[in-house]
């Protein structure tokens, strides 16, 4: 209870901090006033530029946190993470293909639908390869293969684009950024993210039961098939939509559950909600950091996350290395 409240307070504080971070130097109170009443340019800046950016940081962070915790719970492996296992990369591929073919323009919700479809394929492929119980080795290897393939095809799709700018955007799709996103992106992502969260929220008990293995879970009246389908579609929906608008942001789903697990005594169902809050806090903080560290350079969020996440990932591999052999 206390932890959730603490995270929520952090989240609100960072949300306000995020709203007051930007190129325009304005006093905090002026900015917040403009958010509600401003009809001049400051109002536009607050409502159309900073507000959607902060909201997206929460959507994306929460989705990645929730999905990381859920995947780890389902596979009973702390190394499972949407970015590392190639789900984000595949979602990015779906998004790029839909943008370049015009599917995103001509079909309502085409962008998140395409990202969702590709993400679904990736999760299914991964579960197929990793088996019901994801061993670290299979997970990492399958993740490398799926990510590499998705990255290559993303690059190819961008290279084939008639648009000269597209080629240089591989970095965005592989590293992710929230710069200059608008409410259009919020509306594209929001429904898919929320549906995904609800799906994953509904398998909390099943993930708790899976702590004792599949057979015990099954004898506790848990339907393994239903759990698997809800997990696949839930992860694909929220990670897909988040990636479609902000690119693939790695390591959030790894770092956040890892840090919070000891605080919730490991219980997967509690960890999902807490990781959602934690993920939102982390991405909001990272997005503030990229604007403060290099304000003129659209520093990619994925870069910052990798700097924090990769050493932790290595540490986790080191810790579980006996299980890898």
């Amino acid at each position, binding site marked *: 209870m206390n932890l959730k409240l603490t995270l929520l307070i952090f989240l609100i504080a960072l949300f306000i901090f995020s709203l007051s971070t930007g190129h325009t130097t304005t006093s905090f109170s002026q900015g917040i006033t403009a958010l509600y009443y401003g009809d001049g340019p400051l109002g536009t800046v607050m409502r159309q530029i900073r507000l959607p950016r902060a909201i997206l940081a929460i959507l994306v962070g929460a989705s990645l946190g929730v999905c990381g915790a859920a995947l780890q*719970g389902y596979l*009973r492996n702390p190394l499972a993470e949407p970015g590392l296992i190639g789900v984000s990369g595949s979602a990015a591929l779906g998004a790029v293909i839909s943008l370049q073919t015009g599917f995103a323009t001509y079909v309502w919700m085409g962008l998140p639908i395409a990202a969702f479809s590709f993400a679904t394929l990736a999760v299914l492929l991964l579960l197929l390869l990793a088996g019901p119980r994801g061993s670290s080795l299979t997970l990492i290897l399958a993740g490398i293969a799926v990510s590499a393939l998705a990255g290559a095809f993303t690059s190819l799709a961008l290279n084939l684009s008639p648009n000269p700018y597209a080629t240089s955007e591989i970095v965005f799709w592989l590293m992710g950024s929230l710069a200059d996103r608008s409410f259009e992106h919020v509306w594209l992502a929001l429904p898919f993210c929320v549906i995904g969260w609800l799906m994953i929220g509904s398998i909390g*008990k099943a993930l*708790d*039961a*899976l*702590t*004792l*293995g599949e*057979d*015990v879970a*099954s*004898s*506790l*009246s*848990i*339907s393994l098939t239903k759990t698997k389908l809800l997990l696949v579609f839930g992860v694909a929906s929220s990670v897909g939509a988040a990636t479609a608008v902000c690119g693939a942001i790695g390591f959030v789903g790894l770092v956040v559950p890892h840090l919070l*697990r*000891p605080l919730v*005594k*490991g*219980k*997967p169902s509690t960890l999902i909600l807490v990781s959602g809050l934690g993920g939102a806090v982390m991405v909001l903080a990272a997005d503030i950091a990229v604007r403060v560290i290099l304000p003129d350079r659209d520093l990619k969020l994925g870069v910052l996350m990798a700097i924090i996440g990769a050493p932790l990932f290595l540490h986790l591999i080191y810790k579980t290395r006996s299980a890898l052999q």
Partner: protein
Amino acid sequence: MTLLTLKDLSVRRGQCPVVDNVSLEIRSHELVGLVGPNGAGKTTLLKAALGLIEHSGDSSLAALPLNERSSTAAWMPQEREINWPISVLETVALGQLLPTKNLDKNQIINDALDRTGLINYRDRISTELSGGEQARVLLARALAQNTPLILADEPIAGLDPATQLTTMKMFADMAKEGKGVLISLHDLNLAATFCNKIIMLDRGRLYAIGDPAQTMTDENLEKVFNVRAYHARTDNGIICQPIEVLSHSN
């Protein structure tokens, strides 16, 4: 009261039958020991009875709709799996994931902790306990499911003698209170001492069924296990200690 009925239960792996036409019943007040050499099909029989694997024939348990399983039988697989560092209390409480109707959930969990002597361990982290303690936690978890039937696959494997004895005593007590308990065992002596019914499996077939004195005969042990045993009778029950391998030609 009959709690589990198996009728012509078979499991095939490819062409080869792993469990072959087994029919039996488990009633309340019974502690049933499922014995047989490695590969006799003990684990497969238990899993098929629970409906966890594909089978032919009937199992009253496997035929139940999914949502009724948790209130009918508790299952303890051989692998003692606790994947996350959750507390003893949380682990045991998983038995009440779908709470039993009309009963106090916390009362049931506390009873299970009390019975297994874990009441002072409730806030400890399960994964940080010793193997024997973890086995007790998982036993308490199964008890907390508060079912009339308990199935366990080698629940005493790998435990020290004292823990083996207390665990078997606990199963025997539960049977006395009216539950039906079906456990697979390798320890013929403990099976003979504590169980009031023995099911002997030989290469997937039901070879013998009955009370220990009827089933643990020299002839059966020779045929099924290829051993000769020392037999004795004490105040606590029968002793049946294998002491000699007969031949390798089986």
